């Protein structure tokens, strides 16, 4: 009889019915169906079959059978998983160490980078009203370019304080930071500080230790930082004590504030004193600057009231300057617009020569990306090793399933293993970070502390452990647990050909990153070396320099020089405008024979004394130095080669410039022009950035722009610095007793110009070596794993006559190919990004092909070393041993 129940109904039943009831119900249905076919006919039987199936759709039929196994507590199983995981870790100590260590190093690097970025982003956060404070700046058009100036004219402050009073909650005028000699009793100290309006402590929400924020209301008051207070007064209460400023003005301490942390704009300001005192100390302000809309020398800070935005306020004060300079057509033409520059942008988007310098924010991105990459490398390792290992565990999965594990348990087991490893790595990473934080702070010149109490820190770490655990555990947990035990245990199970593809891709990614970092490091170092080898044009050895901080320094040139030379340790002494490592002043208004009228660029304009050349050791290309023998030399001029070239006077050679006349007209028509005769041309001196072209610079004895302000002393080469300094100090103590003896070595100052680049170099080198280390760890693990997996194959090959060399070649080839692919990706990437970086420097090294070749070859060599260790070990193994065991 061919009667069969309706298949669709059967399928429906099988779909909804709980498996343990299916057999019985299908039996019932079948039996009834056959009876009915005989008694009522096929059609009726089918119809009733359908009705029966539908009537069976009831909860108690659908509900699946509860597990027959005992239902252990979740924690019991967890304990078991962790125990198994632990046993696995200790059984394969090598792998575990590579795995945990690699991941921990990656995490530690990411943590350090994260902390650095956090520190950068939280710059100035110390001030409570951080998001309402701004600097008043001026946007104007200068030589066709829109730029922003941060130094303001005095009357603008007055204008804002009177006509726009309601717009601001606080408006604070401030001087530049300046060094002053603070004296309390016998204690003398050179301290950096600022003159500010009395509202400043309130605006900056200074945390007062003694006194209160109203302390600056008294015109002769001073607020000092805790550090200054300690240095001047020890532990005594400094309130109402008297300090002498620069040996002239007596001020009273009305408060002590907590030191501003390093990541604030004003952290160098160690004392604050009043605006009134600023005017009193600089009497020229009241005479000449108070209504002068052209003399820029103050800074203005503002706090806006809650509820208003910077844009609104900027809009209101936009024309505060323009409205007042109708009488100055030249200034009006620049269309100055006053606007607010929010505190949150000061650090990451600073203005440099009127334009925003993107360096700091790019650095944040760079550090973030590098941290991310190192972490990625570590994660890749972790995943690669876990998945590679897990294939070995296919049999374990088979056995477990046979004795009754359900899939959910296997998934939990593999996941708890990977989470355990990730957790251990986190612990190690926390340890590494804590230990290396000091070193890192030194490297990046910051004061970062471990944010143990920061919720975000823990949340991020936990999230990271979770994600890593999930990623690394997902392959074994989800894929391996799906194996059919029969296949695995019978040995017919083969991991597919493509199972290794993701792993290969990951190795390529790792090495691409590593090789890119190696190339970048080499290039950064080359650039630093290149700039360091640039001819400096003067001799830095034994040259010390000091600012003339108070009036007591002036008018003592001859006696100072005589006394210093009498000590026998000083070869020569001079005074100059600014230190030799900086071009302090720049001016235009020069005229010379055959001048192209369109050329009116600013020259470096520096006043020096006659002996300056001998002191710093500048080198003449043509002409001669200043000499006291000729009285006319006081109107002489020494120019550098860049200036000679710029003026077009070095034609055909520099000699041609000597003897030419140069006239300097001051921009305010209140001084008669000075006519100079060029005495000599010196080799370019690197006074500013060693990466930039030399500014055309002129040196003279007397000029329009002020006088000498620094002392330079050349110590005799045969004398040791400590001996010399001792004797020099004695002279200063005798002649200028009011000032502390503070000096700088020029070679150190010069070296400081490389600090930023050297920092990048050190960081890049550090990250590159870590990346290589992590990648090699991973490779090592993978290589040993492959070798282990192919033990039998190698044994058979050896029996059939394969040589050790050919086996080594066979085992290494795969990895070498991967690394070559990585190099091919990395080289163009590095070339592109590093040539972009070098564009920042005018004086820069070239990208030579050998750098790339070297990095590639290095990566290859390291790979071969790493892999060969395992390959040769495997190839040397006695085949009897590897084939005997089964």
């Amino acid at each position, binding site marked *: 009889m061919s009667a069969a129940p309706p298949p669709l109904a059967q399928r429906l039943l099988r779909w909804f019915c709980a498996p343990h009831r299916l057999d*019985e119900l299908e039996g019932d249905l079948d039996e009834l169906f056959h009876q009915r076919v005989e008694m009522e006919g096929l059609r009726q039987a089918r119809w*009733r079959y359908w009705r029966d*199936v539908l009537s069976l759709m009831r909860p108690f039929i659908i509900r699946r059978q509860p597990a027959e196994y005992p239902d252990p507590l979740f924690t019991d199983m967890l304990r078991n998983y962790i125990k198994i995981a632990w046993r696995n870790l200790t059984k394969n100590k090598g792998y575990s160490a590579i795995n945990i260590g690699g991941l921990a190093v990656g995490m530690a690097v990411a943590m350090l980078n994260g902390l650095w970025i956090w520190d950068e982003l939280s710059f100035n956060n110390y001030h409570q009203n951080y998001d309402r404070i701004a600097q008043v700046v001026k946007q104007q058009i200068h030589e066709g370019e829109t730029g922003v100036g941060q130094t303001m004219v005095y009357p603008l402050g007055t204008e804002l304080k009177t006509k726009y009073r309601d717009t601001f909650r606080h408006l604070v005028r401030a001087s530049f930071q300046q060094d002053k000699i603070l004296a309390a009793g016998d204690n003398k100290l050179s301290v950096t500080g600022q003159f500010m309006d009395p509202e400043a402590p309130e605006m900056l929400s200074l945390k007062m230790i003694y006194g209160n924020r109203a302390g600056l209301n008294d015109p002769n008051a001073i607020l000092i930082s805790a550090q200054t207070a300690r240095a001047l007064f020890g532990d005594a209460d400094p309130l109402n004590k008297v300090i002498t400023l620069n040996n002239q003005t007596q001020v009273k301490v009305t408060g002590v504030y907590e030191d501003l942390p390093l990541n604030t704009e004003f952290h160098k300001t160690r004392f604050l004193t009043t605006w009134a005192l600023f005017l009193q100390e600089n009497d020229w302000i009241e005479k000449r600057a108070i209504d002068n809309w052209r003399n820029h020398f103050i800074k203005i800070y503002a706090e806006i009231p809650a509820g208003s935005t910077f844009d609104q306020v900027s809009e209101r004060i936009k024309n505060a300057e323009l409205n007042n300079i109708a009488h100055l057509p030249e200034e009006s033409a620049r269309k100055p617009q006053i606007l607010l520059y929010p505190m949150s942008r000061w650090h990451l988007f600073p203005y440099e020569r009127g334009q925003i310098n993107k360096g700091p924010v790019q650095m944040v991105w760079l550090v973030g990306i590098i941290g991310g990459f190192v972490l990625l490398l570590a994660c890749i390792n972790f995943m690669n090793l876990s998945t590679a290992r897990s294939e070995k565990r296919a049999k374990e999965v088979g056995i477990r399933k046979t004795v009754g594990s359900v899939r959910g348990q296997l998934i939990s087991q593999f996941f708890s293993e990977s989470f355990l490893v990730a957790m251990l790595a986190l612990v190690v990473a926390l340890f590494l970070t804590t230990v290396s934080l000091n070193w890192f702070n030194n490297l990046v010149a910051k004061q970062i502390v471990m944010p143990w109490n920061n919720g975000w820190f823990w949340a991020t770490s936990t999230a990271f452990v979770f994600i890593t655990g999930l990623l690394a555990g997902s392959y074994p947990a989800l894929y391996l647990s799906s194996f059919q035990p029969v296949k695995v245990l019978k040995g017919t199970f083969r991991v597919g050909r493509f199972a290794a593809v993701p792993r290969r891709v990951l190795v390529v990614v790792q090495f691409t990153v590593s090789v890119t970092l190696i190339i970048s490091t080499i290039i950064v170092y080359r650039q630093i070396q290149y700039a360091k080898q640039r001819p400096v044009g003067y001799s830095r050895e034994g040259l010390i320099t000091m600012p003339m901080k108070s009036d007591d320094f002036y008018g003592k040139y001859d006696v100072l020089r005589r006394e210093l030379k009498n000590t026998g340790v000083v070869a020569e002494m001079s005074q100059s405008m600014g230190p030799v490592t900086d071009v302090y002043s720049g001016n235009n208004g020069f005229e010379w024979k055959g001048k192209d009228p369109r050329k009116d660029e600013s020259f470096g304009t520096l006043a020096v004394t006659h002996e300056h050349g001998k002191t710093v050791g500048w080198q003449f290309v043509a002409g001669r130095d200043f000499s006291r023998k000729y009285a006319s030399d006081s109107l002489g001029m020494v120019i550098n080669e860049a200036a000679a070239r710029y003026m077009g006077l070095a034609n055909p050679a520099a000699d041609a410039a000597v003897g030419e006349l140069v006239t300097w007209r001051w921009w305010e028509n209140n001084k008669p022009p000075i006519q100079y005769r060029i005495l000599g041309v010196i080799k370019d001196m690197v006074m500013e950035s060693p990466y930039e072209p030399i500014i055309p610079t002129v040196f003279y004895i007397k000029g329009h722009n002020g006088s000498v302000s620094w002392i330079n002393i050349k110590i005799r080469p045969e004398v040791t610095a400590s001996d010399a300094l001792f004797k020099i100090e004695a002279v200063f103590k005798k002649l200028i007793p009011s000032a502390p003896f503070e000096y700088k070595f020029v070679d150190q100052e010069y070296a400081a110009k490389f600090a930023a680049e050297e920092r990048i170099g050190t960081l890049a080198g550090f990250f590159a070596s870590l990346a290589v280390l992590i990648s090699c760890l991973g490779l090592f693990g993978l290589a040993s794993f492959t070798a282990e997996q192919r033990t039998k194959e190698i044994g058979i090959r050896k029996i059939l006559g394969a040589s050790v060399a050919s086996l080594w070649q066979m085992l290494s080839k795969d990895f070498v190919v991967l690394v070559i692919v990585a190099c091919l990706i990395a080289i163009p990437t590095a070339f592109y990004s590093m040539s972009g970086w070098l564009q920042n420097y005018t004086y820069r090294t070239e990208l030579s092909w050998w750098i790339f070749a070297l990095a590639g070859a290095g990566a290859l060599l390291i790979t071969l070393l790493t892999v060969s260790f395992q390959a040769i070990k495997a190839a040397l193994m006695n085949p009897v041993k590897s084939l005997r065991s089964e």
Partner: protein
Amino acid sequence: MKGTYLGEFEEVVLLAVAIRAGDAYGAAVVNEIEQQMNRSVNLGAVHSALNRLQEKGLVRSEMGGISAERGGRRKRLYTVTNAGRRALEEVRELRSQMWEAIPKTAWS
């Protein structure tokens, strides 16, 4: 006595299980009811009733052996428990008690 209350259909199913003592499984119960009462019932209704009776403790079930007639499929065999028997007796007593109570005049 909440919980052991016997619905009408449940009573019929329970009786059918008792009648088929030793060989009472889903299809057999359906057949029994259809033959006795001459009405068609759904398998689902029967299983549902059996399930409820089991929850009330009036029947118990166990899987029977494999037999060829159902293509090797096993049967779930139900038997009436002591509680089930008592429940049936109670219903019957209640009914006869009520029959007794009908006055003779009622039928006239």
